[in-house]
């Protein structure tokens, strides 16, 4: 029985800038079904955090309920984690973020957790531009309860049971765009070349970064009639373009690949390079992103890649004008200014 991964790693694997090995970003061995797309997303998160050289202890992973929400156990085993209530990951993430703004917040959710029970929470955390990465591991079904169609299943798509889904799907990317998300992307668990730079850019982005990742459920929803299976995703995937993420520490060399269109500098100084973009596509145009998504959907294709980014909008802390230190770094007098301050506030309200 092997529920333990061997401890040896490839001897040529180098440590990152902080001296951490990639192994330091791994979690326990997955207990998901063999072949689950979610495991690939976990691997992409591990790779991204390792390459970004984020200290593992400065990451908080927060999730709700579902197969997707189990995955934080399988990555970043040395980070903080909170497996919360179904659909309530955004509330917990908001609270944590308000208390300690210095940490990296990775929220992991699924199509059930975000598009059904947690749709309200998803909407509000999006419009507040909370500084976090929100990943939806989207397989179009409720895998943990044996594969019923979820709210993101396309009309006509059929899971293992074989009955085509009659209801209109919720497109979470379109919703996120409409609700004011400042970073929106879509990807596929089977394409790490696209997914890893996307996650790295999303983590570096200051504000609400949303990535919808098509992540096939091998057990219940990888049929030929399903639009969320490996084969369908591969055959119908289109991309807005190719992107590269250049972290702030790395010097930008002028050696661009042919097809280079433009670059976007993020708040922390790191740069997103866009190549071979679809003609006329502008990742800074929210309306165009919504229209393009719609157009591809009508063609029966899945548009992936970076759909929209605005690195300059104020995040939740700036909108609120909160103190710029984590609460734990404040002294007792700042946290508890005394009865005179309370009276001053109260008198203001009279």
């Amino acid at each position, binding site marked *: *029985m*092997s*529920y*333990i*991964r*061997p*401890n*040896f*790693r*490839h*001897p*040529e*694997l180098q440590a990152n800038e902080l001296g951490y090995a990639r192994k330091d970003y791994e979690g326990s*061995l*997955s207990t998901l*079904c*063999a*072949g*689950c*797309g979610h*495991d*690939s997303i*976990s*691997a992409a998160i591990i790779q991204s955090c390792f390459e970004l050289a984020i200290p593992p202890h400065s990451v908080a992973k927060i999730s709700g309920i579902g197969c997707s929400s189990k995955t934080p156990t399988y990555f970043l085993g040395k980070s903080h984690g909170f497996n919360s209530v179904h659909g309530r990951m955004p509330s917990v993430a908001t609270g944590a973020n308000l208390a300690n703004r210095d940490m990296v917040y990775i929220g992991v959710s699924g199509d059930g957790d975000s598009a059904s029970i947690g749709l309200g929470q998803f909407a509000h955390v999006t419009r507040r531009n909370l500084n976090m990465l929100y990943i939806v591991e989207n397989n179009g079904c409720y895998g943990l309860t044996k594969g019923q169609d979820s709210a993101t299943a396309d009309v006509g798509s059929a899971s293992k049971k074989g009955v085509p889904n009659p209801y209109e799907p919720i497109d979470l990317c379109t919703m996120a765009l409409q609700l004011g998300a400042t970073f929106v992307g879509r990807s596929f*668990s*089977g394409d*790490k070349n696209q997914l890893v730079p996307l996650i790295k850019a999303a983590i570096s982005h200051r504000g609400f970064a949303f990535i919808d990742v098509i992540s*096939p459920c*091998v*057990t219940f929803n*990888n049929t030929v009639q399903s639009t969320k299976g*490996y*084969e369908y995703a*591969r055959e119908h995937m289109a991309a807005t373009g190719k992107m590269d993420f250049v972290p702030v520490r790395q010097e930008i060399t002028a050696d661009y690949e042919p097809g280079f269109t433009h670059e976007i500098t993020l708040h922390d100084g790191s740069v997103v390079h866009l190549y071979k973009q679809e003609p006329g596509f502008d990742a800074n145009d929210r309306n165009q992103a919504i229209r393009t998504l719609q157009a591809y959907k009508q063609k029966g294709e899945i548009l992936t890649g970076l759909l929209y980014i605005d690195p300059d909008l104020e995040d939740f802390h700036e909108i609120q004008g909160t103190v710029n230190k984590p609460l734990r770094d404040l002294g007792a007098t700042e946290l508890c200014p005394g009865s005179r301050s309370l009276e001053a506030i109260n008198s203001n309200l009279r």
Partner: protein
Amino acid sequence: MKPTNIKHPEYFHKVVDCQYACPAHTPVPEYIRLIAQGRYDDAYMVNWESNVFPGILGRTCDRPCEPACRRGRVEEEPVAICRLKRVAADNKVKDDIAKRIPSKPAKKNGKRVALVGAGPASLTVARDLAPLGYELHIFDAQKAGGGFMRSQIPSFRLPEEVLDEEVGYILGMGPVARFDTYIDSLQSLLEQNYDAVFVGSGAPRGRDLKNLPGRQEGAEHIHIGIDWLGSVAFEHTKSIGKKVIVLGGGNTAMDCCRTARRLGGDDVKVLVRSPFADMKASPWEKEDAIHEDIPIVDNHVPKEFVIEDGKLVGMRFDKVRAEYDSAGRRNLVPTGEDPVFFPCDDVLVAIGQENSFPWIERDIGIVFDKWGMPVLDKETFQATNPRVFFGGDAAFGPENIITAVAHGHQAAISIDLFCRGEKPSRRPAPGVTLVSQKMGIHEWSYDNQVDDDLRYKVPHADKKLSLLDRKLEVELGFDVATAFREAERCLNCDVQTVFSDSRCIECDACVDICPTDCISFIENAEEEALRKSLKIPANNLTQDIYVSGALKTGRVMVKDEDVCLHCGLCAERCPTSAWDMQKFLYEVTKAAPLCNV
């Protein structure tokens, strides 16, 4: 690249690094698993079938398998393969083994073969041919069988009982041994109408320093290492002077110095021309010598034997340093310092050994090359006189026991084919099986969990006691509990990762789970480009990459065999069983099927 042909027996054979590196291709992981299961008899027989002398080799093998061991590529030290082999020999039930060894065949086949020398090569030929009914005559000048295993390897490394037992198994199968019989003419042997003659007479001549000043005058106290070891083994020599200089840096030098310590040498030194790191001796033999208070003085080239009043009093050496040219060739350059003098009572010269065939007439159809070596077919070991076959050190110069055994197996096949009137060049294919180990979703019929334990050390006998007794074995061998732990370090490289591209749905589960990042799904290319574009580039060119056929997306699966742990997680995480763990057993075909393991 074209898809890898895994049906070719050598592809997976190469993945089993230890077995591939072994000249006799002993199925190492197979017997290590048997040791872990406590099946020592079975482990012994797997060895015996392949390398003929498990007890002897478990103590004295040069272990080409260990530097090849995959474990040494993922951590510091390889599995202690050699010492595990000894565990099988130490813990077997002798009577049960005797029953499993083929007895004398009831029917003779009417063919007669003479074997010159009773060393490992001849004994292997005899063992492989005996069950087929050959009448085998073994000739040796020594009084007992074993050849250099008896005369050169000291008893504190190889107890006589172990040697006697394993030589005895072979002699018990029917060959007739004529000891104390030196063959001085191959022609007269051929005239006795043998159907074939096998020459396994070794490389019996130790190199000397004939032209070094003082060699003649000091002759009484200057000994050729291998001759001196033989003389000690047969108890003609029982003592040596207090101060001894051993010249040479090979394993014979190590055996000489350690033997000298036991025969009265209080101040024994090894002096070697090359730098310490370049010495030919196995690292563990150097360690053992140093442990017995024998300094190894490197970079010293003998200049003269110093004689005073007609008596050897010491040796003078020139100091050198090693310089390497761009091709890596070594040059010993004098440092220009004054020569150094070391006093001594005796000198043992262990600077190599050579072949010598004074007993083979040059006009009986056996062609010798300019170095005085017989011209042989590299595969069949047949000489230019078709009735004569060579093997062991006599074939291509001094090697080691396990190489001699490997030669013996091949020569036996050649002799059998020749005696049956077939062409010796028609070599039999190896025996190969490939069987799935899957028993359940998370269950394999091998222990796939990879152990973190570091290599275990073999306990040694107390130094004070062992220096007093030439016959007291120094290495004590693993106890059964330690042997189990050590056996668990084996990565089971013979349980192969077998990929079937028609089943793969390209979900990446194997890529994500693989602890050593061996697996990539990428666009196909030529090998050089492919190796560079893997998840972690495959820089170890001695290890193959396993390439699948085109998958649905047009990509291919490429697996770098280099540091695969054979943990089976790729197969466990595969939703469609495109990966399977299958045990690959490769057996070198012998002249006769010997035993059922």
